[in-house]
């Protein structure tokens, strides 16, 4: 019995490693394919790699948070609208504090530092507020997360439209865009990439090294056993939803800095893109299982696909088709692996 179990266990720990390997290989294959097919020096140039990184940065931040949420057995469909809501409020705050209009040249902004600090604070605070709202509906009113955050998806967008009277908020101070959105840290790495990398690193450590991370897994694995083990389940879930909201706030700052405007029409697919990236990375939709490494790959795959298609002058619409196919393949492989083992 124990010999068989040992073999089984060995198979499993190896197959878990090989699962990480599988999506890693898919990503590597894509990179190699685009490198061969693209004109020399286009796809694998430093500038283009930075492009891919910047394009992936916002989805990376959201997906890192979604990884924790899905592992804990939660779900948040509202993040895209929360990003818009936070962007609108933040942009309005920055404009109000810094002053706007053609009379003020790029160097003439008053209180620029203060304006940006206030904008960041407002962005994160509005994200946190939506996280608290979602927590209240899910944990107190006991509305399932799918429904609760679907409702918040509509409400946050609607309120953003009310606040902005349905128009994009533009005219943000140019230095915000030039120095942060399009700027590079120490002239090396674009700020959006630095921000995404820092957020991901912190959440990676939080998930894999800390008590909070272990309890996040425990909640998703068996919420009742977590409760009986004395873990304050509701407080833990509240923290995760608030964290998710705060991350949406950070993303909104990156977004308005990159584009110089708070756009109402963007981000409608953010939640689904994040969930598919996380699932491609091997995290279970049913909780209890998942790793940040997989999520990083799961975010890079669609980014590389889109970038490669643009360089090869394939219509970018095909990216959606390709990502859908990758999602199915990733989940199919995951199911095969699970069927091979004992049922739990």
């Amino acid at each position, binding site marked *: 019995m*124990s010999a068989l*179990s040992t073999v089984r266990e060995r198979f*499993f720990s190896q197959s878990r490693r090989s699962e990480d390997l599988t999506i890693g290989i898919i990503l590597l294959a894509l990179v190699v394919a685009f490198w061969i097919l693209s004109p020399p020096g286009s796809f694998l140039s430093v500038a283009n790699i930075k492009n891919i990184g910047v394009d992936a940065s916002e989805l990376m931040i959201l997906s890192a948070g979604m990884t924790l949420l899905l592992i804990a057995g939660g779900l948040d469909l509202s993040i895209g609208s929360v990003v818009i809501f936070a962007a609108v409020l933040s942009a309005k705050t920055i404009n109000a504090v810094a002053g706007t209009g053609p009379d003020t040249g790029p160097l003439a902004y008053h209180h620029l530092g203060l304006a940006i600090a206030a904008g960041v604070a407002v962005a994160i605070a509005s994200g946190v507020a939506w996280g608290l709202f979602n927590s209240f509906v899910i944990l107190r009113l006991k509305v399932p997360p799918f429904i609760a955050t679907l409702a918040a998806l509509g409400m946050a967008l609607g309120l953003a439209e009310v606040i902005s009277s349905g128009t994009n908020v533009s005219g943000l101070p140019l230095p915000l865009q030039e120095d942060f959105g399009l700027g590079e840290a120490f002239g090396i790495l674009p700020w959006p990439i630095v921000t995404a990398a820092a957020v991901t690193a912190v959440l990676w450590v939080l998930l894999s090294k800390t*008590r909070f991370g*272990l309890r996040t897994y*425990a909640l998703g*694995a*068996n919420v009742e056993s*977590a409760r009986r083990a004395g873990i304050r389940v509701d407080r833990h879930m509240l923290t995760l939803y608030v964290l998710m909201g705060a991350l949406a706030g950070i993303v909104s700052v990156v977004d308005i800095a990159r584009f110089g405007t708070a756009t109402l029409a963007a981000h409608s697919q953010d939640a689904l893109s994040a969930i598919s990236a996380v699932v491609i990375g091997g995290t279970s939709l049913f909780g209890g299982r998942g790793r940040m490494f997989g999520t990083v790959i799961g975010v890079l795959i669609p980014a590389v696909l889109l970038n490669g298609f643009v360089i090869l002058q394939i219509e970018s619409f095909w990216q959606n088709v390709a990502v859908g196919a990758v999602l199915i393949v990733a989940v199919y492989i995951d199911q095969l692996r699970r069927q091979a083992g004992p049922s*739990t």
Partner: protein
Amino acid sequence: MTLLAARGIRKRYGQVEALRGVDLEVGDGEVHALIGDNGAGKSTLVKTLSGVISPDAGELELRGAKVHFHGPRDAQGAGIETVYQDLALAPSLDAGANIFLGREPLRGGVRGRLGFLDRSRMRQEASVALADLGVELPSLEAEVGTMSGGQRQAVAVARAAVWGTALIVMDEPTAALGVRQTEVVLSLIRRVCEQKGVSVLLISHNMAHVLEVADTVTVMRLGRRAAVRRAADTSLEELTLLMAGLGGDAEPDAEAEAEDER
């Protein structure tokens, strides 16, 4: 010596009076079995002892001192650990994480204050606890969900043995197990009791198992204690009759009824 005494415990769920003034005395360092037919009130009594429910009336004494449990944490704080029938394990975590869940050791210094886990200590102490009980697992890194029923039971018992300092309550530990795994778990129960010096309260409806491992048997019937027997002085036949309400001491029932009338 009496470790835990429950006196006159009552609990009503709507129209149903699950416990009607039940008494229970568990001695120090013994395996005490609690048996009874379905609906006798065993589970409700166990939930009272593990702090999951608060009784409507009656008192609990631990080592002669009155105790009140307002939740499982209180009972755990008093040294009472419960192995639930569904084991309450997290299937995607390993044995160490399951044993320490909710009471995870942290690293020293700044990292500890930031909530960093001491994984090597978790793994090492789990391995010692399992070895002490003679439990062999395929690997300490294996997910509990991939283990056999007996191995999972062993992990749940090991968790209780690590933390329980007074009493370990086991609710139907062999109900879902095959014959061989049942043997393993029964000997595990005795080992926990003898090595750790704690008492074990074993809830079961399998009287053969009860007679095999228990020192003392309390029979419950209709929310009351029907009889107490030393395992060595009783038999399958007698226990069966007692559970069915035939024969045995009439006193506890009479006492309870007298109380009812008052």
